[in-house]
């Protein structure tokens, strides 16, 4: 009798998974064609993308870069982009009406800006923070020009004030508040009576001057960055103070903060900019007339400070009440507990909102074109008013949009990085 039973002695190796489940096909099946609805959506999306790129790529890729006018472009090939306008006017888009021989100044300011934000963004380089502190003065001096001493005197005065305060605290007084008031008075006296004389003296000893450039010459992305960066830097601390004021249990301070925040958030930025350009002269002593860019910066700062305050208030509200109580029971004073316990957590929670406010502020800098300052969007119409480029739209808009996109998108990417880095819980 022959044995027909078969017993496998060895384990067979596992067979590979079906080809439809792994690799490219598996990925496609899982991600793009998992159901009939998904398949339809996929096909529609692909169709849409192809249509967009079908028109856009030849338009952008074959674009002309060195013609003299739009007419010339159209004569060559009307179906492609005429980037010559960028080639001809990029300086204007970047610098506005800034004198051509001084272009190195805004350029240098921008490079320094990148250097100055590194210590703030990446803690590894925090030892270079001193540069971030001197940067604002440096930027003002480089952009507007004039004597270096009239900017430095601000730093000198503030440093002296701080030193005075520290000496008072260490040697003579216990009370911070009285010391602060005295230091404030000291600084005020310095700026009112001594600074002018000192500037004159320093100028006589060592004159370092740059040609003065007036504010109306500023324009293009230089202007956007001036307004945007100043607004961002200034609105953050003001926003924190406003948020604390709104949470405060001192009714007068709370009322002022609430009134300010609700008023600013209730009106469009445009109306505030109009107040800056038209009405501000009514509110100031007769005969005062201060710089239009400065006015705009102040308004933009106040505007985004109000939004910042609300974002930070959200972060404060998100903290458990126990944190306040615990820090109080440890015996920390109000400012100590804010600085060490409350703010670090509240700010961490509100990072996305804060960065959104920054991005919003940077985008809102385009609104200054409506009060006829020359920001990139305003310049687009100026360039179109030139007969050579009359009728050009997309090339300019795409370029301007791309610039803003890069800045804003960069900011939002950084905020996501920061969120990941600061995440302490799972």
């Amino acid at each position: 009798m022959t044995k027909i039973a078969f017993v496998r002695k060895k384990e067979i190796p596992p067979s590979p998974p079906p080809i439809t489940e792994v690799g490219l096909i598996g990925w496609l099946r899982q991600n793009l064609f998992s159901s009939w609805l998904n398949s339809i959506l996929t096909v529609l999306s692909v169709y849409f993308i192809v249509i967009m790129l079908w028109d856009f790529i030849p338009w952008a890729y074959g674009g002309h870069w060195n013609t003299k006018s739009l007419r010339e472009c159209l004569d060559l090939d009307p179906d492609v982009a005429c980037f010559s306008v960028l080639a001809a006017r990029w300086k204007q888009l970047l610098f506005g009406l800034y004198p051509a021989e001084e272009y190195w100044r805004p350029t240098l300011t921008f490079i320094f800006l990148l250097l100055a934000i590194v210590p703030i963004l990446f803690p590894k380089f925090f030892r270079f923070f001193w540069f971030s502190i001197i940067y604002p003065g440096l930027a003002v001096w480089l952009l507007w020009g004039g004597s270096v001493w009239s900017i430095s005197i601000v730093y000198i005065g503030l440093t002296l004030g701080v030193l005075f305060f520290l000496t008072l605290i260490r040697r003579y007084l216990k009370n911070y508040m009285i010391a602060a008031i005295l230091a404030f008075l000291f600084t005020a006296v310095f700026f009112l009576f001594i600074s002018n004389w000192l500037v004159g003296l320093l100028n006589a000893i060592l004159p370092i001057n740059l040609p003065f450039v007036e504010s109306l010459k500023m324009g293009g992305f230089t202007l956007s960055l001036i307004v945007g960066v100043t607004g961002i830097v200034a609105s953050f601390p003001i926003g924190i103070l406003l948020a604390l004021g709104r949470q405060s249990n001192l009714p007068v301070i709370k009322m002022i903060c609430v009134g300010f925040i609700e008023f600013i958030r209730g009106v469009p930025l445009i109306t505030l900019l109009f107040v800056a350009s038209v009405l501000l002269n009514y509110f100031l002593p007769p005969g005062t007339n201060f710089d239009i860019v400065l006015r705009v910066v102040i308004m933009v700062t106040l505007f985004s400070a109000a939004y910042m305050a609300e974002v930070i208030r959200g972060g404060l509200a998100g903290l458990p009440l126990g944190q306040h109580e615990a820090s109080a029971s440890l015996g920390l004073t109000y400012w100590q507990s804010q600085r060490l316990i409350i703010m670090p957590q509240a700010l961490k929670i509100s990072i996305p909102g804060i960065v959104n406010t920054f991005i919003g502020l940077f985008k809102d800098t385009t609104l200054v074109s409506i009060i006829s300052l020359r920001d990139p969007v305003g310049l687009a119409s100026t360039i179109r008013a030139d007969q050579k480029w009359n009728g050009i739209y997309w090339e300019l808009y795409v370029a301007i949009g791309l610039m803003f996109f890069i800045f804003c998108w960069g900011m939002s990417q950084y905020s996501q990085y920061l969120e990941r880095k600061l995440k302490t819980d799972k």
Partner: protein
Amino acid sequence: MSSPTLPPSESFKFSMLLSDTRYRGMSLQVITFIIFMAAFFWLVDNTIKNLALLDKDVSFNFLWLRAGYDINQRLIPYTSDSTHGMAALVGILNTLLVAFVGCIIATFLGLFVGILRLSKNWIVAKLMSAYIEGFRNVPVLLWIVMVFALLTEFTPAPRAFKGAEPEATMLFFESVAITNRGTYFPAPVLAEGAYWLLLCFGLSIVAVIYFIRFANKQKKDTGKSLPTFWISVAAIIFPTLILFFAMGQPVSLEYPYLKGFNFKDGIHLRNSFLALTLALAFYTSAFIAEIVRAGIMAVSKGQSEAAASLGLRPNKIMSLIILPQALRIIVPPLISNYLNLTKNSSLAIAVGYMDVRGTLGGITLNQTGRELESMLLLMGFYLAVSLLISSFINYFNRSFQIVVR
């Protein structure tokens, strides 16, 4: 037994106003108040002096003077002989129109994009995130002028529709014309008896509301659910439709037609209006999409798993479990985005749309030279709108907040 002794009472010293926590808050407030009032009076004083220098007074009488300028889009009767006040009102209505239409489009678009952004379909999710990032990271002013350029420069002129073989044709069975002067739609013409139709329509909506309440009540009492959706749809459509034919079609459409070099009749939507509304709606929809996505993602996965283990079907899980919880998170920021859209509509000036900033804060301001009064009124209007909306948000938050024990 020693009785507890009180600490020796300190005599009041002047420096305690600043150092003692019992008094510090009070003195801080007094100082702040004094500084605030001083600043306020300084500003008022300056204003009075400046007005005196310019020989001006503060008066709102200009609102009753003849405006003397035309407004191309008006929802209420207005001619150049009307008053500045009327011009402001026309502007306000135009602002509200843009805000209203823009909010509706933005909501639907935002919902659509936000839900698709969560899709498991890779390419759709990526496309939607490109949409969101693209619109969020480019200034809205740029979008407005871009949409305007698209509408005015890349659409045919009305005369392109002329002739035996026109270069451009009207869409949707010769009813909609997109031209560089605006888009023309058919307009409904109400004949006699049309109001009965409207009444009928209104009544059926009321009836449906009551029906849904009844159905919900019955479901709570007996556990049986009625096919609410289809009955509601039928109840809204059919009575009006039957009445429409029974009364001999009292509502007809008036089609736009070409006359000379322009279209006549129909509803004319100007490019300025379209560009502003669409750009604002696209821009805001990107934000709304993110809000919707965040809201849905914030509902923890355990909720839908628990609902599934109770035996609910996917659409029931969405409508009964996920959405009610997500809406609580979605609605407040959604409304504040509506507010942002309304405020951003003041960018109308970039495309020449006559909103309240264009009439009251623009031409009226320039003609009468009443900067202070015009800006006050303008800010008052925007403030009123935003306070109204934010009080609604607060009301919503109060009534739908999860009550913490």
